[in-house]
Structure formats: C-alpha cells, structure tokens
C-alpha cells in the first residue's frame, strides 16, 4: 500500500512541486525535501526486521536480501527520480553543485546507517536495546539495504542518462532536463555530468 502511495502520489506532489519552482526551489526539493522523505521511508522499511507474515499467514523469519525486494522497488524509483531531478535543475552550475552535495549527503547517510537506525529504534519506535541475535539480524538488513542502494544508485546514473538521450526527440513530452531553446543535446555536457555523478 505504501509502495503504491509513493508511486502514484509522488508525480502529483513532489515532482510537480519541483517542476513549478525556479532553480533555488528546485535545489531545495532535490537536496532537502526528497532525501528527507526518502530516508524516512527507508527507515520505516528497515525497522521491519525479525519476523514477518507470509501470504499464508504464517510467521516466518525475515531473509533481508529476499524480503527487502519491495523496498528495492521504491528505492530504485526514488533514486532514479532524484537523478532525473538533478539533471533538470535548469542550470549546469546548479546541477554540478547539487551533484557534489548529493555525493557528500550519500556518504554521510551510508556511513551513519547503523547509528541512525539504532536511534530510530530507541527514540521513535521506543524499542528496548537489541539483543545480540536481533543485532545480527539488523546487520544483515543493513548489508542488504546497502547492497540494494549500491545497485540502485549505479543503475540510476546510467538509466537517467540513457533516458535523456533516448527521449531527446520526445522532449516536449518528457521533461527530463532538456534546454528550453530546443537546441540539440549537448553531449559533452551530458558526458561531464555523468562522470561527475559516477565519481561521487
């Protein structure tokens, strides 16, 4: 249900808010609002560790890599949306700055996943401190989440570039960051932008 809400609600809220703004507003959405929403969702998903209910109603153990597949759908969507928004800020300088800030942000987010999740469990969910067994499960969940994040981020860089190039002829339909003067695709700028994103 939450997945469908994100998929259906995002285009009509955050993305339209993004598209209706000038460059500063767009930067705020892509650098502050979107990461906050995304991390909040990811926190919620990651907190569902331990046991879960299968389709037959039985209580079964969570196997993170397999059972976080639903999270991967949402994460890959949100990551790709962010990549497209980054290319769609309306200014190459703004995009460059945003890519650098995004890199720093992701480094911080990824390196503090353990501390943030423990704080989230303690203060928000008000759970007791984890037992060693629960901690082992949590570590498996973090490993699976990081693995999914790696794949989603790498793929999003290439997919967003691919979409931009493939849909250059359909730029009136897809607002993927094309210039408003209808000039042909500036491949050197695109290439440099992608290198920046990959290098982060």
């Amino acid at each position, binding site marked *: 249900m939450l997945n469908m809400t994100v998929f259906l609600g995002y285009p009509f809220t955050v*993305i339209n808010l993004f598209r209706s703004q000038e460059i500063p507003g767009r930067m705020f959405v892509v650098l502050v609002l979107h990461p906050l929403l995304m991390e909040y969702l990811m926190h919620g998903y990651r907190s569902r560790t331990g046991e879960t209910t299968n389709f037959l109603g039985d209580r079964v153990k969570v196997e993170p890599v*397999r059972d976080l597949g639903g999270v*991967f759908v949402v994460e890959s969507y949100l990551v790709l949306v962010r990549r497209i928004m980054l290319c769609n800020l309306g200014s190459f300088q703004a995009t460059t700055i945003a890519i650098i800030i995004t890199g720093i942000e992701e480094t911080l987010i990824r390196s503090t996943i353990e501390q943030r999740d423990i704080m989230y469990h303690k203060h928000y969910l008000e759970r007791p401190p984890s037992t060693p067994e629960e901690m082992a499960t949590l570590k498996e969940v973090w490993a699976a989440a990081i*693995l999914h994040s790696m794949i989603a981020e790498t793929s999003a860089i290439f997919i967003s570039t691919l979409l931009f190039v493939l849909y250059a002829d359909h730029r009136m339909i897809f607002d993927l960051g094309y210039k*408003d003067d209808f000039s042909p695709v500036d491949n050197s700028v695109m290439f440099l932008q992608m290198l920046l994103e990959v*290098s982060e």
Partner: protein
Amino acid sequence: MSERAASEGGNKKQKNIQPFNLASVFSPNYPLLNPLFFSFFLGPQLFSELCVDSICTYVEMKNDIDVLGAIGKVDHPIFLISWASTLLFSSAFALNAFKTVPNFVFCSSHNPCDCNPNAFRLYQPMCEAIESGSNFTQVSDSSSTNLGELVVVGGNMTTVIIGALVVFVMVAIICTSLTWIQRRKEKKVFGEMQMALQAKELTPEQVKLVANVMSDLDDSKRRTFGKSGEINPKGKKTGIEERRGSVGTVAIARLRIKYEDIKMVKANIGRGAFGDVHKATWNGVEVAIKQLANVYIETMRSFRAEILLMSQVSE
C-alpha cells in the same frame, strides 16, 4: 490535443514525424550509445563505480556489516531477473512521472500555454509564437516536434527493449563482479585454514569436523531458515542457530563459558595471531585467555574454527 493545437496555431507548420530509428541510436548524434563509447568510456566508469563501492564495502565490513555476504546470498537467476524487472518497472514509472502532458496539477487548463511557465517552460517558445501569431518551427537533430504532434511519436517499445537489455546486462555485471570478489575471499580464507590444518597433522575425523565447521560458517549458499533444526543445550533455538543450525554453531554454544567465571591473574603474557593472551583462572583451573584485537568476520570464523579444533585436540 492535435486538433486543438492545430486550431490554436492555425498558421503553424505541420511536419511529418519520423518514427524512432534504431540505426540513429548508433550514429554520432548519440555517442553515449556508440559501441566504441561503451568500450572505452562507459566500461572504465562502471569499473570506477565498482571500486568506490568496494572501498565503502570494506569500511562497512570493518563495522561487521557484511555486504559481500549479502551478495553471496544472490545464488539464483531469479534474483537477477527480479532486480532487472524492478529497475525497468521503476524506470517506466519515473519516466511517466516526468511526462509533461497529463500532470496538470498546478494548472486547471489542458493547454500548457495557460499553465505555470516554470513547470512548462519547454512550451514557452511555442506559446509565445502562438500568442504573437508568428510561425513556430522547431527543428531538432532528427525530427520536428510541435504541440499538435505530441501524441503521435512512435517507437517507444524499441526504446523499452533496449533499456531492458541494458539494465539486465548492467545488473548482471555488477552482481557477477561482486560475487566473484566474495568467492575469491572465501576461497582464500578456506585455503589458509587448509594449510594450517595440514601443518598440524590432524586425524581424518578432526579434518572432517573442521571442514564441517568451515562449510557452516561460510554458509553463503544456504539462505533458507531452520532446515536442520538442531537445538542448543537449553533446548531453545536462537535466531542465528535457527538460521544456521548445524554442527559449528551448536558446538560453539556448548563450549561457551561465562565471563564472570574468569578471574584475571596476569595481563598480556603473550601475543597470538588473533590478539593478546592473558593468564587467568577458570573454576580453579589455570587457563590462557585469548582476546581478539580486531573483530572481523574472517577473524571470527578462523577463531571459532580454532576453538573447535583445540577442543577436539585436547580430548
């Protein structure tokens, strides 16, 4: 939409739309998809991304977050297919989310020229041309586009197929590379243990026991829970035991002693491969205590294997 646009911009020049041409993808206009570009530019970039991720993974493993272990659980093609499908699915949704035509949330009109100029800035040159009554012609690299032709561009299926293939190959390359790293690491650790065992001239039973332990501790292939169902001496399954539930974990549980029962006599009497060695007493018996200096996954595996090995040798 087409008729409305034609009536609003009556003097607008209509042109034939070219269908999507696969050959044009490999033309100089699309260097990102040129095979040579892929070979000499995209490949190294992908490699650099893998290097960055590998470095991060190494740091995470220091915190005992075993990302490579998670990769080791990807042992079935269904994973690759589901991940590629997920990326394709999310790409389609993301692309649709940035479609300009139906998303008129901030605009009650179906005419983009009446909408927020920031949200529909791509249309502004055309809208200005319509307003001023002048001709509007937009020439792009392979076709012309105007408002009246928005819904008649074709070839999206070809684009989707190309995208799906690229995504599938990409996911396969990433997973294969990471799995290869994981397998090499496991092979190295196992080889070192084999060499250590050969040097100690163990009996076949002891070699078999340690081999069982190693296969249990390096259990990256089995990912189902609680199949063997062995229990610890208290008769209660713990989370890890239920998942792994075989010889090594149960044997380790039987050998576990309470920290409170140990009385330290003299610290740092020596230094071993895993860390410092202390002199202590346990239930009145003089014992040597090994304290791990660095708690890595490999260290723990080797340490646990040594505990089991030593317990057999002493008997």
